């Protein structure tokens, strides 16, 4: 580790060299155009939760990255460095300080982006800075661990193939029992299906009920679908650690499997960063134009109801509900109206949270924050803003279309003792399904078959 100024450490030099390869014109625009007007300041939940501390201001954080760009890549910074606050980085300690800013003080939520009159997109170059630090091996431990799992095992929770298959088979048995249909299947690797359904590994590890709920909906809709045995993880840590190569590899695995299975459509279960990574950024990272359709399961479920493929009864979901927009869904993919429409069809009492849609505040677990244990105290402090937003709705349950937000919201709800539940649309839709007739019919059908068999 070098601590002598002007003698740049190996890692610092490597990071600066790499920066030039990662900059795009969009990023250079954002790095050059900031006028330090401060209009973005109050849009950041970190600022609002830490009044009086300017180091949380988006422009302040951005300047920690911008100064490097100005010093090494922008000629005004090269000619008059002090005048425009350009600066370099020399030691590994400084790299660690940068890490604490780009990972620990920003969830890449893009709320400041939509509030900047100049169109400065801090989240994009903050992600780039994360990628540069990861490139030289400086990142929070949790980020390193999860990225490694995704590189090596193929999913970010290190779920082994046999555990994945076993969990699906277990949910298949549950489906058979709930639907009274011993032939009900959760198909795996079925070629030429209409839909290839990909999920978040959290569903296998912590929330298998979501797999069952989705399977029930597909079953009732009579959908011809399959789950893949490989390339089933639609989450992508490349979005969080800024590693485009990881992003491309993970998204590529999903795309390759859909192509191998000749699936007509890729349906992505409810996950904000998974949806953004697989649906939007993945083709950019993988440098691949995908030839099949891809959509969020929210859109699929809504279509089933509209087409009469499934029937729902909203009285089955009593209580009051509000909706939390995942930043990735709302601010980066425009998925704001479909979840609302769907929610209004499956619950009786839905109350908006303010601000909402693209202006919603981050759950504070975004940008991979849930995997960075060292920043938990400051994350939970910044979560006060979200907690106040939730409490103001006066509802009992917050619905979200994101597994990451489920964890972020659950953590803050516990911390601020809000006494609210967190759920997803798939759970509410499955619960609202009108299936009594189907179950009765199945009961009769298979009882008759059993009788025939016994004779």
């Amino acid at each position, binding site marked *: 580790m070098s601590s002598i100024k002007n003698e740049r450490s190996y890692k610092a030099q490597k990071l600066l060299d790499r920066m030039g390869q990662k900059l795009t014109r969009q990023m250079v625009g954002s790095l050059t155009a900031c006028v330090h007007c401060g209009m973005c300041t109050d849009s950041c939940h970190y600022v609002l939760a830490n009044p009086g501390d300017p180091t949380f201001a988006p422009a302040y954080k951005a300047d920690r990255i911008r100064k490097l760009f100005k010093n090494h890549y922008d000629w005004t910074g090269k000619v008059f460095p002090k005048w425009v606050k350009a600066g370099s980085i020399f030691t590994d300690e400084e790299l660690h300080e940068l890490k604490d800013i780009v990972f620990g003080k920003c969830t890449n939520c893009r709320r400041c982006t*939509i509030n900047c009159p100049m*169109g400065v997109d801090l989240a994009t170059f903050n992600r780039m800075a994360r990628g540069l630090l990861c490139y030289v091996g400086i990142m929070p431990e949790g980020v390193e661990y999860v990225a490694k799992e995704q590189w090596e095992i193929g999913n970010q929770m290190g779920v082994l193939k046999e555990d994945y298959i076993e969990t699906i088979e277990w949910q298949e048995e549950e489906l058979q029992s709930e639907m009274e249909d011993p032939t009900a299947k959760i198909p795996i690797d079925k070629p030429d299906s209409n839909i290839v359904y990909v999920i978040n590994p959290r569903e296998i590890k912590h929330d298998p009920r979501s797999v069952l709920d989705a399977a029930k909906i597909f079953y009732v809709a009579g959908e011809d679908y399959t789950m893949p045995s490989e390339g089933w993880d639609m989450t992508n840590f490349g979005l969080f650690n800024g590693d485009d190569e990881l992003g491309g590899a993970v998204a590529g695995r999903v795309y390759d499997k859909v192509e191998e299975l000749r699936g007509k459509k890729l349906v992505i279960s409810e996950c904000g960063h998974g949806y953004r990574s697989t649906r939007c950024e993945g083709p*950019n990272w993988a440098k691949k134009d995908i030839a099949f359709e891809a959509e969020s399961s929210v859109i699929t479920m809504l279509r089933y109801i509209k087409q009469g493929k499934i029937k729902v009864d909203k009285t089955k979901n009593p209580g009051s509900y509000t909706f939390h927009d995942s930043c990735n869904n709302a601010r980066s993919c425009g998925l704001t109206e479909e979840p609302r429409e769907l929610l209004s069809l499956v619950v*009786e009492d839905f109350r*908006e949270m303010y601000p909402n849609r693209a202006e919603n505040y981050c759950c504070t677990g975004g940008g991979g924050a849930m995997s960075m244990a060292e920043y938990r105290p400051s994350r939970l402090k910044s979560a006060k803003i979200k907690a106040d937003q939730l409490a103001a709705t006066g509802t009992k349950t917050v619905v979200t279309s994101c597994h990451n937000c489920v964890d972020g919201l659950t953590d803050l709800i516990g911390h601020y003792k809000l006494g609210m539940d967190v759920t997803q649309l798939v759970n509410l839709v499955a619960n609202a399904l009108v299936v009594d007739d189907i179950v009765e019919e199945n009961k009769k059908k298979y009882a008759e078959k059993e009788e025939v068999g016994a004779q």
Partner: protein
Amino acid sequence: MSNLLHFSEHTLQEVALVLMATVYFLRIRWFMKWPLGKERQPATGLGDTNPKKGERYSLANVAMPWAMESTRLKPLMYIQFVVFHLGVVAAIALSFIIPYGPGLLESSAFVSVIQVLTGAAFIVGVMRIIRRISNPYIRAISSPDDHFSLILLTSWFAFAFLAAPNDISGGEGIMLTYFFLTAFFLIYVPFSKISHYLYYPFTRTYLGRTFGRRGVFPIRRKPAYQMSK
């Protein structure tokens, strides 16, 4: 009119303009050399918007204070922004009107318009200087260039205000200061943050293109679902 004033109104301005244009050209050339990130994904969103619509919305943002929470909740800041930039337009226009169309300044109404615009911009400039020094958030992000650019512009507004009547009967000091300041301004701008307007069309277009393709721009805030039993 002295030779010096004539020089400052004509030759000096022309040289400064050429220098500014040259540096701008170099800056744009430098900027365009960076590779443009490509968006490959098929569009998302409800299908009622597209990259072009997103671009238009994004570029028009400057005239839609309701579009962003930051300007919607701080109308005073937005008004300051408008006044300040109208002052810039008026002060620049004046530097062309005095040498090339002085007849316009024979109308006292016209002079009053220029003075109202530059005078108001001067007041906003002073308010901004105070804010930049006293607001801890703004102070923390300010560079010497930010402070200097603001002081430069604010002083320039003051001299534009005083120069607007185009009257040298009491001496040429004000006119000379205004034109030398203008020339300095023109030469300094491309190196400073004042050149932000050069990047504005690019940054807003790129952001609008992406957000239009992804169904985010124009931003929706309605309908509000409030459907208690």
